[in-house]
């Protein structure tokens, strides 16, 4: 067990190194000129040269790669052109906001995905199943920025159901003392339920949007796995032994259908923590790393964007490695050394 765990960690470290090198190649080696892009569309030749010299872009390729990897190992992600601050520090201060939003969205996606998937399986090939299928198609074909915009104009501006999209707390509230960085948790720890409630109301709409749009892949997997389990021989045996439908659903159906969900959580996490998150944070003025990536993109701050991409890539590798361990623990049949 220990050696297989070591092997997995080795693969993870290799992937992280690969993430760093690939990001370097993309930002430095593609035909685009990072100095020109960073200096802006209307920069003069001298300004471009200045940027090039300042960020070491005129060094030889091997020097640049060596310097970059040395920095990476020291967890130095370089300096932002836009703010002149170390990219790593900017990302770490903003990370809790993204985690609070992303983890809430992930929870919503999993609960909704499992709930709807099981509902569809129980009502398979009948009306309930059809309705869930309609939901799956609609939610997987909806552009996150479009539905977010509609939600803000109707649910927030017209009907006032949710807080205004002005970040993590409405105006008039002070942020709770920093313990975990998650406002809802911190406010509760500080014994301030009012602030916790306000933070939760600000959090709810963006998290719901991300969670609902991330759920269809989970619905599909849970539905087909549960149907397979309910129509299996062991479920038939349970039925012939006289177990109730509910007991069969939970013991035979749900337990077997939750396994594939774990492998899918990695993909869903990629959406709620990165892909969809960049757009949602921008529209809701959420002060997380996605909003940072958006701002860097608008200002052509390639180095900040590179830092963000590395952070996401490394985080993604870590999440998937952790999920492999969880999977091996939940399902003893999985051989961690198999490497499949």
């Amino acid at each position, binding site marked *: 067990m220990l050696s297989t765990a070591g092997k997995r960690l080795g693969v993870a470290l*290799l992937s992280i190194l690969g993430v760093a090198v690939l990001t370097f190649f993309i930002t430095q080696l*593609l035909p685009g000129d990072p100095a020109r*892009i960073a200096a802006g569309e209307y920069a003069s030749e001298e300004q471009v040269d200045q940027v090039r010299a300042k960020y070491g872009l005129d060094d030889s390729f091997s020097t640049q790669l060596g310097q970059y990897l040395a920095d990476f190992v020291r967890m130095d992600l370089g300096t932002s052109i836009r703010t002149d601050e170390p990219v790593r520090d900017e990302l770490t201060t903003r990370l809790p906001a993204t985690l609070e939003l992303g983890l809430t969205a992930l929870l919503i996606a999993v609960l909704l995905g499992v709930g709807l998937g099981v509902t569809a399986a129980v009502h398979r090939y009948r009306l309930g199943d059809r309705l869930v299928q309609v939901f799956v198609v609609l939610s*997987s074909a909806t552009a996150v920025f*479009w539905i977010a*915009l509609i939600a803000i104009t109707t649910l927030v501006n017209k009907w006032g159901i949710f807080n205004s999209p002005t970040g993590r707390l409405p105006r008039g509230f002070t942020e709770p003392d920093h313990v975990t960085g998650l406002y809802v948790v911190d406010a509760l720890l500080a014994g301030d339920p009012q602030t916790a409630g306000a933070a939760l109301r600000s959090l709810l709409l963006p998290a719901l949007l991300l969670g609902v749009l991330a759920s269809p892949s989970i619905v599909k997997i849970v539905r087909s796995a549960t149907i397979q389990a309910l129509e299996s021989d062991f479920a038939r045996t349970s039925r012939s032994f006289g177990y109730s439908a509910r007991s069969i659903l939970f013991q035979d159906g749900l337990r077997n259908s939750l396994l594939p969900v774990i492998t899918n959580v990695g993909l869903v996490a990629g959406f709620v923590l990165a892909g969809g998150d*960049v*757009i949602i944070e921008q529209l809701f003025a959420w002060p997380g790393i996605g909003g940072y990536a958006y701002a860097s993109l608008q200002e052509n701050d390639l180095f900040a964007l590179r830092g963000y991409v590395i952070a996401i890539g490394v985080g993604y590798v870590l999440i998937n490695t952790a999920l492999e361990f969880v999977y091996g623990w939940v399902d003893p049949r999985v051989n961690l050394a198999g490497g499949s």
Partner: protein
Amino acid sequence: MAVVDASASLRGNAVARLRIGNPAAVAAFVMLGTILVLGIVVPMVAGSGDVAQEYDGLLGPSLDHPFGTDRYGRDVFLRCMAAARIDIALGLTVAIAVLIIGSVIGAVSATFGRGVDAVVMRATDILLAFPGVVLALVITASLGKNPWYAAIAVIIAFVPLLVRLSRSKALEVRSADYISAARLSGANTWQIAFQHVLPNSFKYPFVQSTLVASWAILDFAALSFLGVGVQPPDAEWGAMIAEGVGDNLLGSWWPSFFPGLMILLTAGSFQVIGDWLDRKLR
């Protein structure tokens, strides 16, 4: 053997199997066809009407302007249709490119095995370590803001998925008896990869590629919304929504509502067709 049976019946009864008996799939084909035809015909009739600023700004939907006009006095319906051409062409191009590149690399990797396979697997591992949109975002940002670069970026983001899928299906095919027979009769590895493994494992990545078309449209619109894909004043659904954000918040919902509806209808149609093909060909 199961694989052989499936592919034989696929070829034998292709027509019978593809007969549409599913109202949702019929609706999806009709929807996609309508949008595509309008996307080709409307811009031809209207000329450069999609970028012309010839009406009053922010007129609500009416008989003259079914989708209203935007803040620059451009007809939103014309722009939506001009965008349809670009977005659907792009979705299909990405899907086909990803299908060809992915299934060829997957089949070669599975057939050759060993070193080739190891290299391909590690490369896809690293590419899959990035969420698709993020990879596409940084590639486009590094290359420069341009729709072609965005399209290439979306292709790169989806290729590893299809490589994985077609490799795993090709591995099943590789161990079939007829592959051993071909090998014994003197076929070399390239011949086996392209004449036997690829054709017999092709349908799985093919089904997946219809879903890729749907995702590509969504991702491309997201890149344009973020400002790195299609640039204004050119019409593209994501870029149109980005342009309409301010007006939407001030009450004029139509310049950004209709482009998003087009995305939903188009991407949704590809999804339904993909699900239908999946059930038909499995």
